[in-house]
């Protein structure tokens, strides 16, 4: 331990600096407090933070602020154990009045739900369904199966003018949203002779795999003229692959590859506006925040929330209805 003291100090200082940079005073990590009137505090625990989650967080903060709640925010970095510890801390140490949770794992969250129930803390889950639905105060999720069906409807409509050879990208095979979207899409397409899924490529929600998979599929099946992208954040990868294959053309062009995505984020909205995307099934992110906070108010008033479980299908945004529907799509906001 007597040798290289300077090097050790540099190493420790560098690590500490980077750690501090990573845990800086942002609303994305650690805890943030929204503006409230002091009616109580809502603890929010997210599985991760990305573009969709950032919008969900904003929706919760807006709804909480208008209802007079403070918000304490934690992110579990896709670690179910970490999320359980954070929720325990929110309940026992920070003594929040209610919880809004996006579970990293719908089954492993059971112990946190039990703890909240034992301490009489309302537990609201959003976006991802949990196994113990009967023990949560309220649950509102998207309906991935219905979203997949809505996406398939767009393909069925487009196939009326010309037969479609479809490349279907699939998200992570361990994610219920990815599986729901895939199944809804696949089941709806069955029996339509003018629609053929010629290739099904897993992406593991990884943009690089989406890029390589799309390039490979276009190489194998040059006749592909339609692509189902299960999330907006994979859209740049798909467009990059189309561009490399010299297949990227605007809607209406004879070379255009028919594209439908799900989420309704800024990428999707921008692409529809730029006429490079045909349709986007937008998740009702604002509705999640509003209804979750309403449910907490109801539960804290010792009333029962009815219905206890809500599955909210997305809204179809396409070239025809863009002007009228964009206001309801979270990614089209300023």
């Amino acid at each position, binding site marked *: 331990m007597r040798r290289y003291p300077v090097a050790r100090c540099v190493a420790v200082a560098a690590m500490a600096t980077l750690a501090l940079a990573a845990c800086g005073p942002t609303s994305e990590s650690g805890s943030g407090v929204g503006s409230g009137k002091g009616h109580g505090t809502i603890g929010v625990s997210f599985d991760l933070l990305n573009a969709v989650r950032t919008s969900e967080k904003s929706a919760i903060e807006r709804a909480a602020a208008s209802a007079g709640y403070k918000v304490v925010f934690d992110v579990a970095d896709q670690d179910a154990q970490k999320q359980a510890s954070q929720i325990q801390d929110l309940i026992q140490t920070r003594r929040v009045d209610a919880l809004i949770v996006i579970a990293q794992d719908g089954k492993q969250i059971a112990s946190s739900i039990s703890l909240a129930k034992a301490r009489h803390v309302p537990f609201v889950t959003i976006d991802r369904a949990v196994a113990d639905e009967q023990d949560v105060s309220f649950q509102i999720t998207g309906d991935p199966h219905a979203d997949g069906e809505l996406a398939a409807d767009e393909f069925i409509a487009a196939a009326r003018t010309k037969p479609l050879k479809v490349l279907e990208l699939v998200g992570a095979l361990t994610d219920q949203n990815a599986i729901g979207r895939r199944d809804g899409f696949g089941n709806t397409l069955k029996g339509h002779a003018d629609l053929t899924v010629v290739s099904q490529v897993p992406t593991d929600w990884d943009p690089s795999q989406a890029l*390589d998979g799309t390039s490979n599929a276009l190489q*194998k099946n040059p006749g592909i003229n339609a692509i189902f992208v299960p999330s907006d954040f994979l859209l740049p990868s798909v467009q990059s692959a189309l561009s490399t294959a010299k297949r990227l053309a605007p809607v209406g062009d004879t070379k255009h590859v028919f594209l439908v995505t799900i989420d309704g984020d800024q990428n999707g909205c921008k692409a529809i506006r730029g006429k490079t995307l045909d349709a986007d099934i937008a998740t009702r992110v604002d509705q999640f925040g509003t209804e979750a906070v309403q449910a907490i108010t109801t539960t804290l008033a010792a009333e029962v929330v009815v219905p206890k479980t809500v599955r909210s299908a997305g809204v179809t945004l396409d070239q025809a209805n863009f002007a009228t529907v964009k206001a309801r799509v979270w990614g089209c906001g300023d």
Partner: protein
Amino acid sequence: MKPATRVRDALLAGARQPLLLVLLVLLLALSVSYGDFASTANFRNIAVQASPLTIAAVGATYVIITAGIDLSVGSMLFLAAAIESSHALAGVPAGLVFLTVTAAGVGMGLVNGIAVTATRVPALVVTLATLQVFRGAGGHITGQQNITLAANLRGIGTAAALGVPAPVWLAAGAAVGGGLLFSRTVFGRYLQAVGSHRDAAVHAGLPVRRVTAGAYALAGLLTALASLTQTGRLGAVQPSIGQGYELTVVTAVVLGGTSLFGGRGSITGTVLGALVLTTAQTGLVFSGASPYVFDIVRGAVLLVAVLAAAMRWRDLARAVGPTVLRPARSRSSRRKPAKKW
């Protein structure tokens, strides 16, 4: 040395790589099975897709040869991409952005290297910590948002020179430069010495700490280069970039014959490892396999790589003999046990 002799030596070196045969068989099988597989466009496609992995894996080879490991590769890739897309570098000429990103890569590698050498904490633990730190820092910079990359930064992933895509040129440069550094320089020999027997290297007076830190710095540099190439291809920076990439990189390196225990490996093997992985991935799409099969194949390749590495280690142990690789026993313990009556 005459050029013909060099070519012959290179061919012989290639022939010593069992993975070359695996790659050739794989290419042949896929070409026979799927007529459109054996096309120039598809081989170009495979070469481009393998390029970022090749570049990152060459860097990881240096680290693994020193008996180290770098689990922060994927997070470094993301942080480098985040720096590239940051507001601070908006409007800055592409060359300066690339220089900044590669310098940041060296810095990240040095953080790993210095932490490993100065603290003697296992590299696995150190780089597991920096994996979190780098990803957190990247998230801080991007705000976890999807960021579209400026057009002038995309050329490194999409342009071509003399008909060869830029990523392939970069991967070839990393492989050739990396190979020469490994086989023709004192630094390369020191790397092997440190990985073979660290204590012996220390006693021989080799600059073990500087060599180890240098290996991590090089890995950081090449990971940043891989990041520039990959984001150039993608055209956007997303928070999920590089997640789990360390597993793919280590698979390519170990598949290429580099020992996880250090001291032995080759850049040629690593390049072949990256090509085999990418070719298999492309082959799966061509085969129309179920999406579930992709994960099975990926896991199986990693398992084969690790088993092959373990078998090679046992072969090495047998060849070198017990005196070197087993703890020395005292004279008394070497005596035959007394017969029991």
